């Protein structure tokens, strides 16, 4: 469990980090909480030559309310989000989501930006980001832009971030009625299935993680929904379901339906 050799640079501003990323290109990796990147490096599955640590950049770890939105800085740890009263009161679905992530140690280090950029198909945040229709703010050498949640996740460990781009914050609309339901994988405690549901009157938005190699909006469920949870039976319509040692396609498909139903009922 010894990583290969690397250089370490602590960035003091977003623009510096972006510049460094541009300079080192493929050789470099952004380091935030390190709770996905470092384990991979220890196993030598990932061997960056340069680590650009963004965790000390000021302004990237605040949670604020602006207009109708809650803005969570990319460097906010899961613990910080969990402890935020603002999030608890106006974005409770996010509180519920981070509560399910790892254990205290993991939550104390892992960040929202790192979690989204890493795009582990079994991680929790993506379902909630999708259901909330959050907006991801990024900055790169060509300046800043935003990416809608629905466009962000591209596949297993793959996002629409450009190589030189850094996530700086995530913007959420306030959510009154939402909930997150997770079936834990017994070893890793990541999600075998994670379902986020945001209800707004008769309409519903459903984000699903763990089921497919890309987290997705369960549009078929949303379309079929008319106030009752039977729409859950559409949880995997047009979805290619993952299979592993804990949940094969049949069982995972079943769980997806059960958990969408559960989230719709909650």
């Amino acid at each position, binding site marked *: 469990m010894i990583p290969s050799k690397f250089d370490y640079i602590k960035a003091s501003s977003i623009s510096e980090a972006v510049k460094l990323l541009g300079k080192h290109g493929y050789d470099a990796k952004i380091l935030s909480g390190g709770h996905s990147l470092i384990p991979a490096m220890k196993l030598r599955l990932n061997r960056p030559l340069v680590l650009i640590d963004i965790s000390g950049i000021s302004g990237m770890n605040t949670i604020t309310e602006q207009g109708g939105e809650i803005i969570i800085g990319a460097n906010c740890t899961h613990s910080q989000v969990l402890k935020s009263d603002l999030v608890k009161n106006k974005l409770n679905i996010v509180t519920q989501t981070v509560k399910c992530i790892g254990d205290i140690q993991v939550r104390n280090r892992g960040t929202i930006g790192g979690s989204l950029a890493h795009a582990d198909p079994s991680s929790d945040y993506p379902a909630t980001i999708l259901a909330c229709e959050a907006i991801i703010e990024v900055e790169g050498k060509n300046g800043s832009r935003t990416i809608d949640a629905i466009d962000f996740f591209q596949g297993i460990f793959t996002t629409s971030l450009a190589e030189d781009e850094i996530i700086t914050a995530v913007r959420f609309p306030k959510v009154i009625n939402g909930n997150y339901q997770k*079936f834990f994988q017994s070893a890793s405690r990541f999600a075998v299935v994670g379902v986020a549901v945001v209800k707004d009157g008769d309409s519903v938005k459903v984000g699903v993680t763990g089921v497919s190699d890309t987290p997705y909006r369960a549009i078929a469920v949303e379309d079929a929904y008319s106030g009752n949870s039977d729409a859950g039976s559409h949880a995997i319509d047009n979805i290619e379901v993952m299979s592993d040692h804990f949940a094969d396609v049949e069982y995972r498909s079943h769980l997806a339906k059960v958990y969408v139903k559960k989230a719709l009922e909650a």
Partner: protein
Amino acid sequence: MGNFIGKSVKRREDARFLRGAGRYTDDIKLPKMTQAAFVRSPYAHAKVLNIDISEAQKADGVVAIYTGQDGCGAYGVPCGWQVNFKNGDTMREPVHPLLAKDKIRHLGEAVAIVVAETLELARDAAELVEVDYEELPAVTDPKKAMEPSAPLVHEEWGDNAAFDWCIGNDRTEVEAALASAHHVTEMEYRNHRVAPNAMEPRSYIADYDINAGKWTLYTSTQNPHLIRLLLCAFVLGIPEHKVRVVSYDVGGGFGSKIYHYTEEALLTWISKEIGRPVKWTSDRSEAFLTDAHGRDHVVHSKMGFDKDGKIVAHLTDEYCAMGAYLSTFAPAVPTYLHGTLFQGVYTTPLIHLNVVAPFTHTVVVDAYRGAGRPEATYLLERIISKAAKEMKMDPADIRFKNFIPPFDGIDEPGYQTQVALQYDSGNYEGVLKRGLEMLGYEDFRKEQTKARKNGKLLGVGISTYIEGCGIAPSAVVGSLGARAGLFEVGHVRVQPTGKVQVFTGTHSHGQGHETVFAQFVADKLGIPMDDIEIEHGDTDQVAFGMGTYGSRSLAVGGSAIIKSVEKVLEKGAKIAAHKLEAAEKDLEYAEGKWTVKGTDKSISFGDVSLTAYVPHDYPEGLEPGLDFSSFYDPSNFTYPFGTHIAVVEVDKDTGKVDLQRFIACDDVGNVMNPMIVDGQIQGGVVQGVGQALLEEVVYDDSGQMITGSYMDYAMPRADDVPMIETDRTVTPCPHNPLGVKGAGEAGAIGSTPAVVNAVVDALSHLGVTDIQMPVTPQRVWKAMQN
């Protein structure tokens, strides 16, 4: 006597463990020490075509690189137990090389070792070693390994069997009894493979001292003397008196650190080659691939009953994986530690077990907490519960009907089984009665009926186990194929000031010997615990020993210490009599002093100790000193037993099992420290629950491991288990001085079938009769669908 025995004295060793001040092997840093890293095979079965170390040799900080061609330990590491084929042929014993030469036989087998100035440099250089492999088809399932088309692990014998062995009554007799039985219950399943997962990974430092011509091996082992013996006499052919093996604190073993591993021998050899100390500490990934695994029996069993539910015969056939080679105790595990427990706690008159033990393209399988006995208990306790369901009997009733009646082993003789052993003492119905009482069995059944009506899936599972511990009478195990004696050594050194050092050949890797052994020595000598130090884990300090496993430390090691304590008191009495000018027979010893009966004339233990070392006024003809060593060879195994009961609720939508209650009523004989016994039971229960619900090593068909990290290998966590409710009955062991039976493995033996029985009970009204372990949500849900 009894200031300490039977009291929950807090563990003395915890002060250093809780402060992070333990002395584990990896904490040791020697001057000029080098670090090793291994190049390990990414295939389970392959030919090694070529190894190119030229690039690696040029890397920074490399001290040396060795491959299988370098002639280290040509005989390999030996097996310590011989089990023969039932036709009398000796078992097949392949060479287990320190480094693979031209053939790879399991994933992670070491091909080369790189020694460098630092661990980082060793790892970097190891990546530069280029190995050309030709991958070959592999077999990992023990039953498939015996199919005619199976790839061979060792070509020389034409099939994969290491041995084919049986025990018990004549097979045809057992078959005939089954044929005429009123009812026969049948089971087929795999007692699946688990990884030991000690918290401290294996770690070794070998240090050759050029000036003295001596080796020191620091090793995370459960039995330093045995390692020294095997290393010197069998692997490297170096003189035993020039080797010191040190094993200070060890962070858990569960069996996996009994064995003599290739890395230990290889490092010892290398240290002399390079003239410097060399360290290797396994990382967690290597631990999954190279620590000896446990279990892995494929079982087919039939049990016959008469119309009243009494067992009339039991016939079982098993395929038990050995792995790629024979580990130190491996052949004993599915045979003499397993078949001999097939009597269980029942009066079964006819028993036959046949064991085929194949080599497989996997890491070796050896003893893991319970070693053969959990596998026997799982079978007996599952099949009798299954039979109860089939015969519409209550699972408690069928057990009461079949129990061996209580016997104390003193007035009533020991119980002679059909499978070679004689049980020492037991009261099996006692523990079941108490367990049912703790549960509130009748109320539970009512609650269950109600819950079912509300669509809830509630179940209870019972298991009543027995185990053979206190390993072991040397002559008996010798006749069963052990290549070592299994006595123990206890040495008591009283110093001039009356302070006492106790040296034990057993080894503590979490058990609490420093506390428990001091408790009974303090009581026997009538002195404070603080005046007693327990020493273990250094072959230069401790005369000899066989280590710790098989719940033997107190029953065998403790007995050896008692023998020495008695010798101290016997000699002390002679000195006291002289000083008090009284006859020895007129003295009594209590509270740390000898008193002339009926008078207030006395002399303290401390004064007698001083006299022994300053023998100015001293009994004629008596040697000075107060220092005794004893060997204790037990006359029999010990037989702890107990009842474990699990209550579960199964989620009908997901199949997830919620373990709601766990009751353990164990009888481990006399109890020295209830807190430590409870801790041992609880830890064991969690391990057994882990196997039932979560843990499983999975190799795919090509021999790759799917569960090689904690992302995929599910260890039980605190929130997976409820508070464990413990109680005990006490049936003393009649044949050792403390009357103790052993508590280290009990929890892991009784618990697994209790949990699975409970899950099957919860689903029985849906027609579910068995579920393969571990009973994961997926498996339970699928069972519910069929």
